[in-house]
């Protein structure tokens, strides 16, 4: 397969854009994943800014109530399925074959198909805006609100079909990476010697393969209930709206780990490089990812503590949920210990990795309140939950993604990103992120429910502060875009190994040759 892609790239008559569109090379596909998902990230971010603009004061008229619900729904759906998961798959695509000393992924053509399903799924879902409005029942789409009676438009149907395409893409990606990591490691690279990022991707891929079919099943059931008169979720014919919640969270809780484990992997590669020393507790970090992956399947009902499930069932889920704090704690402590005794260089990539540890920690700790049943039923469906999910997915996943962008950009494009712009982007992002999301804890305690397009006067000050900070957060991302464009044009040429990295991608040129390695390296 490497010879095939090499011959394509040597053919002089093929224009560059055709080469990109028809490529099966994991590096190009990885970059296309990152590019497409970043565009979708900006779109979903814009939805969030519209939501925040509406919340500047209780009587804003920027969005109608229905438009607001659409924005809330598509912000979450977009960020989860079109931005964060594909960006992380993009990094996996780019990095994993290089990290394990392979020339490509196991099935390059399947890989290309999984990528192309991403824009297809996104277009499918977003087309609903032109066809009478998108889904507006939240990304959780609880029936009966998402059913045909209460959401008669095509929005929910297109949401389901788009999600199907994104789900198939996710499953195919997962299959590919499991096979690649299990079979294609360079000679001598045992599982316990492979870079920690590969462990994260391996566990994530298993989660994708095991959990996504359940999502596909449950949204198909909703599609049937809406259009073909079945009654999976309709109680009058033996169905149950709670069944949706069980099945949906059976997928969607592991989905949170699909979004955070690769970010764990990214920063576990980056922290040691900038500390100048090896990762502390490699095996503990690797196997805590496995533990998180396995436990992730046993905790879904903690999203349903307020539904009136019997106390005995709730208690089991509570203890299992709390158990997840242990492997997560092991990781946090190991990262701090990785920095201990080092010679720490404060490059932007390293700073983002350090910020990840510092602020993802908050998302881990405020989750404990949501694991304990009595505090959960007090805080659930309030802004506390919004704060928690954003500390996990923004302070966690997104900050990890930024760290990865600054780290691998020189390898991807052969040019360095501007460090000064990087520092401005870093500080603005970290400060604005905390000013946006931390006060949401307080709003949650005060009882402000989530998904409200207007609110009581006592919530005004904090909401306004959050909205203003969110605009800064949004604007800060323009600096990253500017930095990328400027550096691609006139950035300093990147050496093979600008950071002093230890993994295999730094042994080849920047950008790497099409076939990655002239000679497959052997690991001692």
């Amino acid at each position, binding site marked *: 397969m490497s010879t095939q892609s090499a011959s394509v790239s040597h053919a002089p008559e093929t224009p560059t854009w055709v080469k990109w569109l028809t490529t099966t090379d994991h590096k190009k596909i990885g970059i296309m994943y990152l590019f497409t998902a970043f565009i979708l990230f900006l779109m979903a971010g814009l939805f969030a800014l519209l939501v925040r603009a509406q919340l500047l004061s209780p009587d804003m008229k920027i969005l109608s109530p229905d438009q607001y619900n659409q924005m809330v729904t598509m912000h979450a759906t977009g960020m989860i399925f079109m931005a964060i998961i594909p960006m992380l798959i993009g990094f996996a695509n780019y990095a994993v074959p290089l990290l394990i000393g392979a020339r490509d992924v*196991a*099935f390059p053509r399947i890989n290309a198909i999984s990528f192309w399903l991403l824009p297809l799924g996104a277009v499918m879902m977003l087309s609903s805006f032109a066809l009478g409005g998108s889904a507006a029942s939240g990304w959780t789409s609880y029936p009966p609100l998402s059913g045909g*009676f209460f959401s008669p438009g095509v929005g929910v149907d297109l949401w389901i079909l788009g999600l199907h395409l994104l789900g198939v893409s996710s*499953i195919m990606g997962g*299959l590919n990476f*499991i*096979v690649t990591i*299990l*079979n*294609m490691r360079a*000679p001598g690279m045992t599982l316990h010697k492979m870079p920690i990022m590969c462990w994260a991707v391996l566990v994530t891929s298993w989660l994708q*393969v*095991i*959990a996504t*079919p*359940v999502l*596909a*099943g*449950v949204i198909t*059931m909703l599609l049937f209930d809406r259009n073909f008169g079945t009654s*999976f979720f*309709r*109680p*009058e*014919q*033996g*169905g*149950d709206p709670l*069944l949706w919640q*069980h*099945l949906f969270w*059976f997928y969607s809780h592991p989905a949170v780990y699909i979004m955070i484990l690769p970010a764990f992997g990214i920063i576990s590669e980056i922290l040691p490089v900038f500390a100048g020393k090896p990762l502390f507790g490699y095996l503990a970090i690797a196997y805590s990812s496995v533990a998180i992956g396995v436990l992730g399947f046993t905790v879904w009902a903690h999203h349903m503590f307020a539904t*009136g*499930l*019997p106390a*005995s069932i709730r208690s089991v889920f509570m203890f299992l949920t709390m158990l997840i704090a242990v492997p997560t704690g092991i990781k946090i402590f190991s990262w701090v210990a990785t920095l201990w005794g080092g010679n720490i260089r404060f490059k932007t990539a390293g700073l983002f990795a350090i910020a990840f540890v510092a602020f993802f920690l908050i998302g881990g700790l405020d989750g404990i309140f949501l694991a304990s049943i009595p505090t959960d039923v007090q805080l659930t469906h309030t802004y506390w939950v919004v704060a928690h999910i954003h500390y996990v997915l923004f302070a966690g996943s997104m900050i990890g993604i930024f760290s990865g962008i600054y780290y691998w950009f020189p390898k991807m494009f052969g040019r360095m990103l501007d460090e000064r712009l990087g520092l401005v982007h870093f500080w603005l992002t970290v400060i604005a992120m905390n000013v946006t999301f931390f006060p949401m804890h307080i709003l949650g305690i005060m009882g402000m429910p989530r998904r409200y397009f207007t609110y009581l006067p006592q919530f005004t000050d904090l909401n306004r502060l959050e909205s203003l900070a969110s605009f800064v957060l949004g604007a800060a991302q323009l600096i990253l875009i500017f930095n990328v464009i400027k550096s691609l044009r006139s950035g300093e040429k990147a050496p093979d190994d600008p950071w002093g990295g230890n993994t295999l991608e730094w042994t080849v040129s920047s950008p790497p040759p099409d076939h990655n390695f002239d*000679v*497959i390296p052997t690991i001692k």
Partner: protein
Amino acid sequence: MTPDDARQQEILKKNQRTLMWLGLVLVFMTFFAWGLVPFYRMVCQKFGVGTIPQKPDPTQVSKGVGSRVVTVRFVGMTNVGTAARIEPLVQKVDVKVGQTTEVDYRFTNLSDHVLVFQPVHSVVPARADAMLHKLQCFCYQQQTLKPKESKVLPLSFWMDDKLDPEINTVTLQYTLYALHPERPVAHKS
């Protein structure tokens, strides 16, 4: 063939084998996902928390009337788009465990067409559901009311003495769902 090519060939074979296994995992998970639906219904039936209860279990027989008294409360609800009313004629009764008690519900069709509806069953505390043994209930099947008809249907039950001693009140709710609910009529103009 160089050693490198030989290795590639070998990996290619291995990849296909692994993919086949993973394909099996995928097929299994798909069956698992759809299998969760009957599994969920089975678990609900076992714990007696299904939305539409099964017929009474003839093996469940009261072992005689005990001295413990439990309050049973009756709640009637109508789902949106259902042109009917449900009224328990008694709001609550105090029953001795093991004692068969009969209460009546009045159902009224407010529309002038035939109404087919299903009463949907729910009990709190959930763990009391399996302890409330129904002998006769309108909830086992769909019910039909003629236009404007009003009729009284009985519910008879006995409370198991195995009911958690901490429970003093059990609430039984029926929600009426029309099988063809009134939908908003599309505007024609």
